[in-house]
């Protein structure tokens, strides 16, 4: 159920890497935990993001959550559709509702990330807590 071509973080972001460009989003697990998303705050094109640090926020009716960058890089694209239709994040978190595109500073940063199988095992463990 989690795309094999994505890599994942323990903070529930995914990244799809094509050459040195990565597309970043949040996982289906994350959007379920959040509930109805009503607001998304994203960086601007040209901003720098740092692995493990916050690059924006996503808000549901009842909670505010930070978005953490999976890798270092420069923002080269931002999904502007989310400004007017934040609910897309609930509907299609792995597709239409990608958050940002970045140019990776170092492709080797992805080695620390989880595979789809590792991520699925990780959340299965969380659910049984």
């Amino acid at each position: 159920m989690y795309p094999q071509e994505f890599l994942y973080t323990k903070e529930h972001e995914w990244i799809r890497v094509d050459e040195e460009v990565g597309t970043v989003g949040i996982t289906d697990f994350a959007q379920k935990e959040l509930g109805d998303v009503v607001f998304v705050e994203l960086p601007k094109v040209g901003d720098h993001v740092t692995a493990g640090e916050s690059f924006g926020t996503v808000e549901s009716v009842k909670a505010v959550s930070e978005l953490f960058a999976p890798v270092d890089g420069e923002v080269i694209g931002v999904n502007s559709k989310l400004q007017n239709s934040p609910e897309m994040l609930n509907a299609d978190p792995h597709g239409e509702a990608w958050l940002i595109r970045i140019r990776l500073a170092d492709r080797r940063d992805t080695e620390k990330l989880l595979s789809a199988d590792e991520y699925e095992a990780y959340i299965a463990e969380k659910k049984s807590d």
Partner: protein
Amino acid sequence: MYSERDFLSVSAPVNLKRTALNRVHRGLGARMVEFGGWDMPVEYSGITHEHLAVRSAAGLFDVSHMGEIEVRGPEALALLQWVTSNDVARLKDFQAQYSALMDPRGSAVDDCLVHRFGPEHYFLCVNASNTDKDFAWIVRNNRFNAEARNVSVDYSQLALQGPKSMAIISRLARADLAGLRYYWFCHATCCGVEGLLARTGYTGEDGFEFYFPPSESEKVWNEFLEAGRADGLVPVGLGARNTLRLEAAYALYGHELDEETTLLEANLGWIVKLDKGDFLGREALLHQRERGLRKKLVGFELIDRGIARDGYEVRIGGRAVGRVTSGTHAPFLRKSIGLAFVPPEAAAVGREIDIDIRGKSARARQVPLPFYKRQH
């Protein structure tokens, strides 16, 4: 991504109280949350969906965690007049009023609904988180020929709210519904269970609250849902209960009301009847009316993008002047709204204030209350 601040926190239900419908909620797949010591459903199908259903059709809430306190005796009226802010003598048999249990400083121990059966028989519906405190307070201040009893365990309570609620309750209740006006109640048998049906609610819509003995709660809940299915009735949790009451600008104890806030400061002067005779806090309120309030509750909506949350700081001209008491993205109005305390001289519809949203300043404008008023 993690929840920096989850406004309705989740915890394991080890020592939590459960209503008689706990199994039903879990069976419906509700996301559960701890609220005031109870294990309660926060949402079933999603807060937005549930909120919109109540505004357009109807929603069913399990509010059995609320408390019920019975007051009886030759001086029941005198006791209630002493401990509450509103004028209980105005009530006719089977009428209810919104009121507050008072403290000598003019603040609320709790807000509540007072219902009158007869001159010597009343019952109060109080907040779940304050039930024991409220009962102890009434007992402590009872120097009258009257008796108060905490009968909360004897009642389950369902709220049916929304424009379709009259049509739905008509199929369920054996009662004179045609004569039941808003803020009145009656004895009613619903689904074969005898109880009290009140035309009251906390959503800003027309609606009913049914108080009944807990033994057949599941049957009553299921029959309500079935009777309303074709009208679009859905179960609704505490998440939407909060966004609904906030759009209607109703107070939530612990936010707009607490022991450091007087009723005048919380915009509840309308439930304070200073002329009814002496009562707890009357002197403090008279005094405050003369000297001036320390703060005033206002409603606002954001001009800049963002959502103001409970507890965020309010600034004017760069100076911190108050706090947001309740804030959210309003699902029906589709804007960010909130209630906040500001200095009385800064309270004015149309005037701008700034909200500190996690380090960034967002402009907001004071607006008239309520944010939402039903047209039907």
